[in-house]
């Protein structure tokens, strides 16, 4: 292959850069079972830790008797809060400014809470020993309802008694955590008072769980000789974990090496810091041996970070012809026993204030009250940017409710309220600056693709047939137009534990023209090793196949805040492009020197610098790389590498239009998704194959959440949905095929115009499925009903509408 004979297009194609559906490099390992996940790690002499957990949701721990457990051969230690307290490690700080028990300190606040940590030679002995630890409990009254909790005399957090000031301002009650307000309350209430039409509803987004297929785990190895702690684990943010471990353990940060190996899905579950991580570290320090902890699925669902659990009371005001004039929302947020939400510090309710959605709403007000209950802590961004899926669900339900009130078509109501393309950058009433968008184009494309009018005609006919007794199946058309806010975020307002939410990339070009790049992020299936190499390939003209990508080892990777909230592409992707551009800038000088012309007299051409006006005189990036290492170039240091720490100027705002067609059996509550169309606009598209894959996966998680996936508690605070039998994850059988589509509205402030996509389908998918269920019953008078829409709840809607005779 002679470079001279190839066209620029052919040369670009050979790079497999941005826009190419490059096959994933990770897959060669994964398809052969050669991944390296945390439970695959085996170190010499490694011990295994297992928890004794509370069967009660609220109880005093009267005593813990370890004797029988310690007597079992192969048991090395049994740790309790008493053992951790001299080290100050029986409690740990949460990401939300609260603190959380590592092991039960006098009481337990949720079922499944960690009470003791058993360390043994293997996991069988550890499990046997955990059975032998005798814990005496004294049951206390249980609060599972956040509204009740705010009225109850029962004090959940005795450690906070008397504290009227929390991490986010005043506390109004002993079970209250914070109030967070955004927007203009008085102006909004004035508009509501005078509006032609006001629709009001309670929109509940139930408690669920990210439930990645791999549970959480860690392996801690304290080397007493070097004083160095190595911690492997399922960490979506390895650098932040290193800093947290250093802060709470007192081990100097340079003596801690955190490694995230391959991660079997995260979806937000692996952002938080868990008792298991801390206990494996302590146990390794105590025993001088490596200690592994891996939770099982029931422990994962019961005790690690839940998501959602937002009660959103909404009011939306509009003129008679449907122009929205104001939006009001009060949210009661159930945070469980400790406030361990994973949100940027200044945003205790995440970016819930994106709840004006895709609409030009001039005036709005949002208040969120966080509440303690006897449930597991968490509140993670489950495949969404912080609380964005709650916000999107809220506004997309309120639009439907308003459409019913106005007796309008919900697609039309959306259209007349969309922010127009020429209004960007758009300043929202709740404080965000939307970077770019073209909602009308996306919407019209979507409606046309599914033949929206045809569907409505079919639905009308179905209603007639139903009323005539000819069918027992209804047809629902679910609509959603969502706007995400991702890429947290600008250091000026986004930090976690005081760490600014920038991200980073370091690129080194080797003399022979291949390269290694290291990032502060960590892939959990998003395919970073593939896509980030594509960005570099396009930016510096070396083939993606010649670029290695490394993440997840804090000893080698530059500091970064990790992967969640769809932030990798917007933040680390930008850092990657910027680092590559630094390299290209130096390469330009080298090329000019080699070509004996002035720096400004060469121009970039796919994979080379060529003399302006003389394209046959050029130096390829490969040649330049070699020169960087073997020639003394006046005024330039040898070598070719760069690092970039990217602090984004703004968030990015991906958007999309989703439409679902669903059949519903009113007698059994069974549903069937006949069609699902997903149009995503994530700005510049780096790898279309991977984008489609992200959409398929995200919509499937949305299907699960909307149609059944729930962490449910009984009144005693027992988790009712602790296995994958009851916690609904659809199989290939229940999952439909999806039609994917796109428009491209690049982000104006991002170096390559990319916005991020991994989480959009979950944000847009949930309201879309839920709206389809509601829409099927709308002709019969349904206004609002709570998720999850499992069989019996759908049946209940039909029953309530008198459909069962």
């Amino acid at each position: 292959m002679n470079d001279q004979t190839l066209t620029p297009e052919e040369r670009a194609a050979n790079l497999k850069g941005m826009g190419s559906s490059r096959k994933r490099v990770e897959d060669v390992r994964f398809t052969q079972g050669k991944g390296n996940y945390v439970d695959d790690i085996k170190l010499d002499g490694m011990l295994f830790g297992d928890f004794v957990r509370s069967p009660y949701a609220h109880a005093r721990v009267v005593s813990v008797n370890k004797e029988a457990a310690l007597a079992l051969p192969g048991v090395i230690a049994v740790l309790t809060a008493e053992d951790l307290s001299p080290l100050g490690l029986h409690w740990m700080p949460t990401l939300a400014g609260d603190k959380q028990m590592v092991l039960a300190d006098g009481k337990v606040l949720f079922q499944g809470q960690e009470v003791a940590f058993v360390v043994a030679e293997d996991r069988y002995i550890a499990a046997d020993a955990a059975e032998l630890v005798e814990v005496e409990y004294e049951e206390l009254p249980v609060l599972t309802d956040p509204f009740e909790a705010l009225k109850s005399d029962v004090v959940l957090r005795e450690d906070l008694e008397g504290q009227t000031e929390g991490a986010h301002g005043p506390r109004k009650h002993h079970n209250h955590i914070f109030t967070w307000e955004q927007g203009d309350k008085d102006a909004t209430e004035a508009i509501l008072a005078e509006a032609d039409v006001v629709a009001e509803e309670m929109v509940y987004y139930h408690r669920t769980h990210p439930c990645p297929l791999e549970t959480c785990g860690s392996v801690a190895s304290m080397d007493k000789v070097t004083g160095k702690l190595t911690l492997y684990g399922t960490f979506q943010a390895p650098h932040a974990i290193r800093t947290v471990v250093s802060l709470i353990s007192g081990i100097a940060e340079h003596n801690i090496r955190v490694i995230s190996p391959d991660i079997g899905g995260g979806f937000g579950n692996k952002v938080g810091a868990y008792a298991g991580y801390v206990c494996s570290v302590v146990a390794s320090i105590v025993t001088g041996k490596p200690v592994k902890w891996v939770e099982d699925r029931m422990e994962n669902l019961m005790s690690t970070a839940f998501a959602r659990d937002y009660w959103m009371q909404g009011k939306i005001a509009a003129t008679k012809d449907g122009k929205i004039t104001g939006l009001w929302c009060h949210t009661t947020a159930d945070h469980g026993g400790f406030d361990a939400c994973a949100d940027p510090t200044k945003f205790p309710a995440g970016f819930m204030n994106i709840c004006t959605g895709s609409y030009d709403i001039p005036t709005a007000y949002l208040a969120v009250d966080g509440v303690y209950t006897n449930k597991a802590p968490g509140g993670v961004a489950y495949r969404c940017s912080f609380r964005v899926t709650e916000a999107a669900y809220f506004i997309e339900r309120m639009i439907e409710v308003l459409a019913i009130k106005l007796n309008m078509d919900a697609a039309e109501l959306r259209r007349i309220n969309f922010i127009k393309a020429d209004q960007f950058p758009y300043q929202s009433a709740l404080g965000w600056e939307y970077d770019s968008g073209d909602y009308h184009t996306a919407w019209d494309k979507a409606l046309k693709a599914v033949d929206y009018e045809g569907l409505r005609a079919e639905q009308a006919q179905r209603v007639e047939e139903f009323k005539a007794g000819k069918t027992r199946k209804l047809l629902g058309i679910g609509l959603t137009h969502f706007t995400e806010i991702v890429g947290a975020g600008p250091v000026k307002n986004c930090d976690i534990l005081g760490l600014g939410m920038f991200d980073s990339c370091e690129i080194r070009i080797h003399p022979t023209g291949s390269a290694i790049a290291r990032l502060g992020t960590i892939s959990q299936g998003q395919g970073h090793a593939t896509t980030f190499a594509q960005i570099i390939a396009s930016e510096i003209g070396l083939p993606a196949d010649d670029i290695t990508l490394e993440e997840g080892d804090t000893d080698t990777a530059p500091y970064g805040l990790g992967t969640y909230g769809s932030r990798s592409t917007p933040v680390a992707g930008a850092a990657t492009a910027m680092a590559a551009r630094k390299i290209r800038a130096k390469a330009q000088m080298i090329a000019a020197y080699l070509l004996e012309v002035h720096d400004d007299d060469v121009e970039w051409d796919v994979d080379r610098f060529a003399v302006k006006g003389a394209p046959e005189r050029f130096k390829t990036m490969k040649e330049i790389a070699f020169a960087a290492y073997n020639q003394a170039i006046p005024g330039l240091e040898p070598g070719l590498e760069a690092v970039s720490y990217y602090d984004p100027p703004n968030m990015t705002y991906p958007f999309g239009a989703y439409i679902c067609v669903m059949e519903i059996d009113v007698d059994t509550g069974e549903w069937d998704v006949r069609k699902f169309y997903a149009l995503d606009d994530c700005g510049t598209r780096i790898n279309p194959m991977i984008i489609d894959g992200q959409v398929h996966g995200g919509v499937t998680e949305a299907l699960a959440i909307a149609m059944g996936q729930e962490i449910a508690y009984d009144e005693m605070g027992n988790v009712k949905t602790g296995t994958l039998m009851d916690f609904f994850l659809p199989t290939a059988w229940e999952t439909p095929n999806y039609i994917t589509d796109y428009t491209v509205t690049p982000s104006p402030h991002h170096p390559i115009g990319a916005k991020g996509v991994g989480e959009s389908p979950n944000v847009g998918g949930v309201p879309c499925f839920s709206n389809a269920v509601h829409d099927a019953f709308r002709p019969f008078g349904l206004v609002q009903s709570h998720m999850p829409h499992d069989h019996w709840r759908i049946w209940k809607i039909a029953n309530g509408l008198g459909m069962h005779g």
Partner: protein
Amino acid sequence: MIPAGFEYHRPGDIASAIGILEEHGDEARVIAGGHSLIPMMKLRMAEMGHLVDLQAIEELKGIEVGSDTVTLGAMVTQHELITHDGLAAAIPLIREAALQIADPQVRYVGTVGGNVANGDPGNDMPGLMQCLNATFDLSGPDGNRSVAAREFYEAAYFTAREDEEILTRISIPVPGAGVGQAYEKQKRKIGDYATAAAAVMVGNGTASVAMTNLADTPVWSESASAALADGDVNGCVAAMLDAIEPVADNRGPVEFKKHVAGVMLRRAIDRAQNRAG
């Protein structure tokens, strides 16, 4: 999710298996496919000192399709039930029901004997066997005996089988030509037990209906069956709804289950009647 320890036995014939059960009493338990038992052991809801694996016992294997009777060895797997064409021709209901149990992996190892002996109200085979009027052959220290499927179930996890008995074979009368059969099951997803399931046979002036997971045992109703035999579908459904006693769980409240039970039963009847021709 680690089970407690046990001694493992793999006897080669029924007599030795019974011998081991006799020796260890309620410290011993038989294991077939293990896909009901092992999950319970991992939760430590079942613990025993001795596990008696039945896999090596030839007498417990095999499907025999006679002109009047089909017999199934207790160790016949659900996968074997599904892939046996002779069986499907003789009693199509069995394949239809087996395909609605669990998922492919579970069906490769889950046995018909384990499914009916288990006594879990969620199991599909017990109701099916009651509908088909099957008989279970048991062997124990005191010899062999047979118990009708309709007499076998006493309460959840309590059956007519004594601890030291092994269920060896299942005999099923082949329904006459002209008898339509159908199995209807509502579940939340593949791998879930029934919200409600109905097994129906009807034709030639006879009928039999049984339902699953709607009480602490399978429910075969004589009066519901008699009503259907008379062509009284409404009477059949009413009698069955009278006989079931569902409890609320994650699949839904009692009213919902009762409603769905009626729907499943009507649908099964409808299909069975159409098949009866």
